[in-house]
């Protein structure tokens, strides 16, 4: 997940700075896979390091691979610290990062946890549907700009898109790059995080930490409730304005007393759309509207039950559109349309993932979100363009003796330069870096 990669790239000091805040620790805990969460809980009350071998006892013996992966994730986030032991008899020991541990313990013992003060119930509060519609329209504005260059986004957004390498300046206006195409086909949380990370990196380190903490705190708010702006500090108020442009929070005007979080920001850290089980009847209807809309048939025809220009323009990246009706767009996947997409830098996997992601519930329920035939064919069309593999290298032939040839091959393999060799022609191909070492080797031994 994007947020996990971003956090792993921070240094230990930066992470420990972040872990000073309770809400950040809790939010990060929620992003971890279930196994990692359970490991943290097991070690929560232990203040001294425990040997790594005892951690092996927690898991069943058949899932050692996932056990190691979960531990690695925790190491990368510096949640677990490793004490290497240099003695043979004593194994390495692990313990929870004390700062993280303290903060989680504090938050567990805290019975009155409120993130921000809520506003009293008023009639002017927007409904959940209104919030969803707002966040959708805001975010789509960003995507429209990427796919369709005629709409004008705000300066902040266009600057972010430029820095994120999703657009490039092209004769005075901006045009989309191949990274931009890939970006369009990803799921919304990855997209938001990509832009947020660029936004964070544009700020100074202290601001970065405060902004991240604020973002994590926002994910603990309740959908549909308003929160008072007056209790936030100045930096957070500034961030509110920017988040409004992304569609992450809603404010009636810039001077409003309260702000309302949208579903996007609440689901942001976990990456799964929050369903709010408490309000189930309304949920079902909302989620159906936003559910998949694509039906792909085995004759390569694609039917998209949508009237959103954005979604249709996204589809036209790799589908040849045929007809457009009030609630339906019909297209066909052809070799040319896929090749155009491939030439722009989109991969076959991305296309298949995009269709699967947005498949119509009827197709999903019948078990075939995307027919195998079409998926295979898209991959074949991609492979068509990749018939040849190129590797920059150096070739040696006409070795004087077989011994010379064999020795050089062995040397190349040991030094990791080896790419390919042919014994019958006595031809050896190595990496570019290996050119000089191998020349010296040959000259020294057989020169």
């Amino acid at each position: 997940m994007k947020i996990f990669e971003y956090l792993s790239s921070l240094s230990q000091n930066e992470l420990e700075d972040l872990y000073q805040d309770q809400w950040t620790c809790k939010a990060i805990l929620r992003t971890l896979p279930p196994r990692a969460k359970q490991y943290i809980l097991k070690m929560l009350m232990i203040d001294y390091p425990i040997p790594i071998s005892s951690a092996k006892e927690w898991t069943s013996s058949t899932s050692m691979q996932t056990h190691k992966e979960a531990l690695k994730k925790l190491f990368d986030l510096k949640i677990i610290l490793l004490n290497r032991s240099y003695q043979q008899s004593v194994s390495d020991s692990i313990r929870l990062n004390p700062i993280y541990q303290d903060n989680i313990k504090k938050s567990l013992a805290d019975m009155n946890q409120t993130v921000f003060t809520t506003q009293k119930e008023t009639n002017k509060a927007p409904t959940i549907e209104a919030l969803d519609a707002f966040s959708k329209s805001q975010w789509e504005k960003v995507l429209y700009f990427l796919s369709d260059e005629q709409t004008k986004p705000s300066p902040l957004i266009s600057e972010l898109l430029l820095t994120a390498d999703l657009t490039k300046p092209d004769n005075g206006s901006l045009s989309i790059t191949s990274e931009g195409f890939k970006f369009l086909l990803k799921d919304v949380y990855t997209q938001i995080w990509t832009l947020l990370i660029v936004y964070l990196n544009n700020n100074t380190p202290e601001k970065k930490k405060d902004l991240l903490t604020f973002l994590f705190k926002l994910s603990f708010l309740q959908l549909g409730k308003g929160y008072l702006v007056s209790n936030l500090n100045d930096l957070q108020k500034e961030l509110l304005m920017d988040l409004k442009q992304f569609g992450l929070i809603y404010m009636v005007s810039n001077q409003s007393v309260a702000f309302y979080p949208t579903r996007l920001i609440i689901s942001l850290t976990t990456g799964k759309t929050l369903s709010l089980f408490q309000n189930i009847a309304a949920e079902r209807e909302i989620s159906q509207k936003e559910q998949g809309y694509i039906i792909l048939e085995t004759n390569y025809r694609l039917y998209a039950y949508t009237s959103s220009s954005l979604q249709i323009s996204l589809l036209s990246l790799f589908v040849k559109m045929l007809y457009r009706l009030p609630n339906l767009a019909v297209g066909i996947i052809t070799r040319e349309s896929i090749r155009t997409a491939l030439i722009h830098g989109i991969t076959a996997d991305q296309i298949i993932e995009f269709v699967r992601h947005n498949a119509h519930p009827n197709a999903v329920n019948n078990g075939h979100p995307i027919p195998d035939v079409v998926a295979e064919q898209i991959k074949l069309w991609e492979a068509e363009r990749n018939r040849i593999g190129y590797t920059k290298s150096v070739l040696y032939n006409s070795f004087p003796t077989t011994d010379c040839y064999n020795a050089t091959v062995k040397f190349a393999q040991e030094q990791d330069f080896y790419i390919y060799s042919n014994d019958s022609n006595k031809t050896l191909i190595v990496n570019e870096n290996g050119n000089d070492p191998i020349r010296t080797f040959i000259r020294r031994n057989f020169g």
Partner: protein
Amino acid sequence: MVHVYKGSLIECDPPTKQFVLWISKQEHFDVIDIDETHLFLQGGDERSMNAIQRRLDELQNENTYSVFDKDVDK
């Protein structure tokens, strides 16, 4: 005396390799035949690689029939 050549190694299936050999005679770049599936392109610069890719794409297009792309091809 060992001969050294700088360039790029091309790895592909046998028919494609024969095709690349044929192109190389027409487009005038040097290749060294290694075995059935490998060729070495001497001086492997952008120009020759693009040329190979372009000719390959043309070949693919010639040999594909597509009902819905008729208006695009013609």
